């Protein structure tokens, strides 16, 4: 059923990761992602992968949900692994036939890249698992607010993001309703070729567009009625405050980045 699609994958909880300041979480996620790409040896990569796994354990997000977020990238993983194995050469040759050589370096690179991608996904999905979409857009607004100097309307952009997220479930409900209404009039959405199916969507999308515009106008009107004039001089109900744990997390992450750089220096590089 269309209703089962989850938007934003927030998993409610009370772990340290949930309680971290969203701004700090956003910055730290960014820092860790950069760190992943700094890794050159298995040891430094191991350190950051271990960090990701421990963080996932602390987050109290069930392992099943974490695995679910890895599911969509399986194809990418296999694809990159195969390409790496085939096109990277060097070291001991394990297998050679039909002009394809599988070498030690190829296998190493493949494993390295796979671990790197998995770690990347774990860290970035931890952010979305432990932060509600609204908190996240709020954090993006704050983090990007220095861009105001360049006359970029950060607040407006963040508000647009919040509203878009807010209306996704509403639109899904609406699609559901319109689909049922058209099915009740005998619309056939399930059979026929691609063109026929695309045509069958017309009776769904036109009413959807119409109601989306109506909603947008109504919302704009309601916001105007409540004197919304954009970001200028706007205060917030939920103030974000950096706590001790945020700074501890920052120090920890910086230490990990430093560790990665040091390990890179002492061990043989894979890539």
């Amino acid at each position, binding site marked *: 059923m269309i209703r089962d699609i989850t938007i934003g994958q927030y998993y409610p909880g009370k772990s340290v990761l949930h309680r971290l300041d969203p701004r700090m979480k956003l910055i730290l996620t960014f820092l860790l992602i950069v760190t992943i790409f700094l890794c050159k040896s298995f040891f430094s990569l191991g350190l950051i992968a271990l960090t990701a796994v421990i963080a996932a354990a602390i987050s109290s997000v069930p392992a099943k949900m974490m695995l679910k977020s890895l599911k969509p990238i399986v194809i990418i993983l296999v694809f990159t692994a195969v390409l790496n194995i085939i096109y990277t050469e060097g070291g001991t040759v394990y297998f050679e036939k039909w002009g394809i050589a599988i070498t030690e370096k190829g296998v190493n690179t493949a494993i390295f890249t796979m671990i790197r991608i998995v770690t990347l996904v774990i860290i970035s999905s931890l952010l979305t698992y432990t932060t509600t979409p609204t908190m996240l857009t709020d954090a993006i607004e704050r983090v990007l607010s220095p861009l105001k100097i360049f006359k970029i309307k950060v607040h407006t952009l963040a508000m647009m993001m919040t509203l878009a997220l807010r209306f996704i479930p509403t639109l899904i409900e609406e699609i559901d309703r319109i689909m049922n209404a*058209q099915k009740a*009039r005998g619309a056939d959405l399930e059979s026929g070729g691609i063109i026929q199916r695309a045509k069958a969507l017309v009776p769904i999308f036109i009413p959807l567009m119409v109601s989306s515009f109506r909603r947008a106008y109504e919302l704009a009107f309601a916001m105007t009625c409540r004197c919304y004039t954009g970001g200028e001089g706007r205060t917030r109900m939920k103030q974000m405050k950096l706590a001790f744990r945020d700074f501890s997390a920052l120090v920890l992450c910086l230490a990990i980045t430093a560790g990665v750089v040091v390990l890179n220096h002492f061990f043989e590089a894979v890539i």
Partner: protein
Amino acid sequence: MSFAIETVNLTHYYSKGTVQQVAAIDNVNLQIEKGELVGIIGHTGSGKSTLISHFNGLLKPDSGKVLVDGVDIWKDKETLKQSRFKVGLCFQYPEYQLFEETVYKDIAFGPKNMKLSEAEIKERVLRAAEFTGVKAEHLNKSPFDLSGGEKRRAAIAGVMSMEPEVLIFDEPAAGLDPRGRKDLTELIKNYRKQTGSTVIVVSHSMEDIAGMADRIIVMNNASVAMQGSVDEVFSKGGELREMGLNVPEITEIFAKLRARGIDVPANVYTVEQGEKILRSLIEGRSAK
């Protein structure tokens, strides 16, 4: 003779297989006879809408059966498709389903899906438009240029043009003014009278239901709590109130009059009925 619609131990769950699994309708056994005008009442979340979505196979029962004209609609794909045409469902705020370039084309959408001939389609569209009061000069207009009430009529015509054996209305008068409400009630009553088809109306408004239904089905907590004639159901005001429902306002007024010792009948359900009784009462007094 088979029933227009019959349900056998019909059960449907929401969020099946998760911790939040709840029965939206639980073991419902109903028979709706051909040519009947049935009203379904129940508070929000009592399972009314889920129930009627089963009648034309929009929802698949988790257990139990839905029989239309004695045939299980989930028997095969073709039967299911035919059931959509046999049982017309007009949703709440049907004007949000309009999409075609012209009102004519929109009303023709259903008949077209039935693969009828061009001539037959035209006949049906004109008939439905006339019946619902869609003006002839509006047929070539964009449906989005009509007023709210006109859109509603056009959308209802879009379901009626399929000329289903059973026509179901979910909250047909939602969002209409009193005049629109009354017109629509008349329209539904006339439709039944002229076509002789089975009509099911789901509503929150006890007045609307009291004014047209032959029989009332009361839904509460996912199952049928009560069913019977207008008299039988509305005479149980106490039970209805316990379910978060009520009797028509006019019935309450008459109950209060009785409480004050004025001799009026208790089974008054429509304003017209009440008006007659009060007038004769006043005339009787002035005659003295």
